C-alpha cells in the first residue's frame, strides 16, 4: 500500500531524511516512533502529499508522489497534531465544509454517521472554539474519515490529551483501524503504540533504525529496544 525507497528530504541544505526505506502492506497498523527531530513529521507530510521528496521514490496506494498527488489525496485521511479545524464554525459546519471540498456523496447522512462514531453528535452545533482539546482531536479524526479513505496517517494524535481523552481516542483509533484500513501513526508513547499497532518502526537520524512486527513484541521490552535503536 505504501512503498518508499531511498527517500531523501532536505530543508535548505539540512538533510532530515537520509535514504529512508519503508514498506506497508494493506491493513497494517504501523506505529512510527523516534526522538524529536528524527524526521517523523517530515516523513508523514511527504506521505500526505503536503511536501515534496528531494530524492527517492514514494508510492502511496499505487500512485506515485508527487506526480499523482491528486489521486493520492482522494484515498488519504490525515490527522495532524494541529486540529486543522475552524474555531468559528460549529463541528457540523466544519464537517460539512470538508465534505463539500472532497465531494462526499450523500453528505448529510455521512455527517451524522461520523458524528455518531466519534461520539460528538450531542455537541454538533457547538463552536469548535469551545471544544476541549480531546474533542477537537476526535472531530479532526471525524474530518479525516469523512470520505472513507483507505489509508490514514496520524501525527502524534495523543499530544496534549489527558488520560481519559487518550483512552477515548484509542477507542476511535481501533474503530478506524478495524475496517481494514492501512494506518501509519507517529507517536512518542511507546506502550500505547505497542498495544494499538501491528508493527512498530523506529525512525532515528533520518532512516528506519529498527522494525518490530507486532507478534514478536513484548510491550514491556519496548523501552529498552527503543533506546538501543536510537543510540545506533
Amino acid at each position, binding site marked *: 500500500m505504501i512503498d518508499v525507497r531511498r527517500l*531523501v528530504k*532536505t530543508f*535548505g*541544505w*539540512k*538533510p532530515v531524511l*537520509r*535514504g529512508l526505506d519503508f514498506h506497508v502492506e494493506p491493513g497494517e497498523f504501523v506505529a512510527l516512533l523516534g526522538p524529536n527531530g528524527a524526521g517523523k513529521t517530515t516523513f508523514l507530510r511527504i506521505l500526505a502529499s503536503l511536501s515534496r521528496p528531494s530524492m527517492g521514490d514514494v508510492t502511496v496506494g499505487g500512485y506515485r508522489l508527487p506526480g499523482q498527488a491528486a489521486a493520492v489525496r482522494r484515498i488519504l485521511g490525515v490527522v495532524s497534531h494541529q486540529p486543522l479545524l475552524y474555531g468559528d464554525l460549529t463541528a457540523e459546519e466544519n464537517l460539512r465544509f470538508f465534505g463539500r471540498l472532497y465531494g462526499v456523496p450523500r453528505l448529510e447522512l455521512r455527517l451524522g454517521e461520523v458524528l455518531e462514531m466519534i461520539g460528538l453528535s450531542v455537541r454538533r452545533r457547538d463552536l469548535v472554539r469551545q471544544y476541549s482539546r480531546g474533542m477537537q482531536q476526535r472531530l479532526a479524526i471525524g474530518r479525516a474519515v469523512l470520505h472513507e479513505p483507505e489509508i490514514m496517517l496520524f501525527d502524534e494524535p495523543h499530544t496534549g490529551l489527558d488520560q481519559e481523552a487518550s483512552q477515548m481516542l484509542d477507542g476511535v483509533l481501533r474503530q478506524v483501524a478495524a475496517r481494514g484500513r492501512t494506518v501509519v501513526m507517529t507517536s512518542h508513547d511507546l506502550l500505547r503504540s505497542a498495544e494499538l499497532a501491528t508493527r512498530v518502526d523506529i525512525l532515528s*537520524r533520518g532512516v528506519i533504525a529498527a522494525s518490530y512486527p507486532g507478534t514478536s513484541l513484548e510491550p514491556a521490552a519496548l523501552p529498552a529496544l527503543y533506546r538501543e535503536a536510537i543510540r545506533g
Partner: protein
Amino acid sequence: MEPMPRTLRALNAVTAGLFVIALYLVLFYAPREAVMGEVQRVFYFHVAAGWVGALAFVVAAVSGIVYLAGGHRLWDRVGLSSVEIGIVFTLINIVSGSIWARPIWNTWWTWDPRLVTATVMELIYIAYVMLRQGIEDPERRARFGAVYAIVGFLSVPLTFLSIRIWRTIHPVVIGSGDPTAQGAFDMTPKMLTAFMFSLLTFTVIYVTLLWHRLRLEALAERVEQRKMELSAGGS
C-alpha cells in the same frame, strides 16, 4: 573555485575597453548640446543605465517563468543576480535623471512617466529582495522570487501607461506640458554614435556582471550541495 573561463577573462578586458571608449565618446567626441549645455552629457549614461534596468527586469521575469516550469536552480540564480544588477543600474538611472533635471528645470524631480516608472521599478526590485530575505527554505525562496518577479514585471507597463494618461490630462506645472518630453532634443550623428555606443557598453557590462555574479552564486550552492551529499551518504 573553478578558474575563470577564458571567455570571461576576455570579456572583462573587452568591457573595460568599451567603457573607456564610451567615456571618451560621451565626454569629448559628442558635441556640446546647444540648449542644455554640458549637463546634457549625463543623458547618454542615464538612458543606458535605464535600459539595463529594464533589461534586467525582463531577464528576471523570464528566468522566473523558466524556473517555475522546470525547477532548475540555475534560473533562480539568474533571476536573483539580474535583480541585484537591476537595482544598481536603476538607481544610477534615477539619480542621473535627477542630476540632469536640476539645471534644466530647476527641480530635483519631475513627474515624468519614465522617471516615476523607474522609481516604482526600483521599489519592486527592493521588495523582491526583502521577500527573499524573509523566507528560510531556499526552494520556497526561489519560487516566491520567481512569482513576484513575474507579477512585478507585468505591472510595470501598466504603471507607465497609467502615469502617461495622467500626464496628458493633468500636465504638471513644472516642466514641459508634453509628457513624453524629457529634455527632448534632436541628436546629431555624433551624438547618435555616442548614444548607441553607450547602450552597447552598458549591455556588455550587464552581461559581464551577471556572469560573475552567477559564478559566485553557483559556487555557494555547490558547497552546500556537497555538505548535503556527505551527510546523506555518511549516516
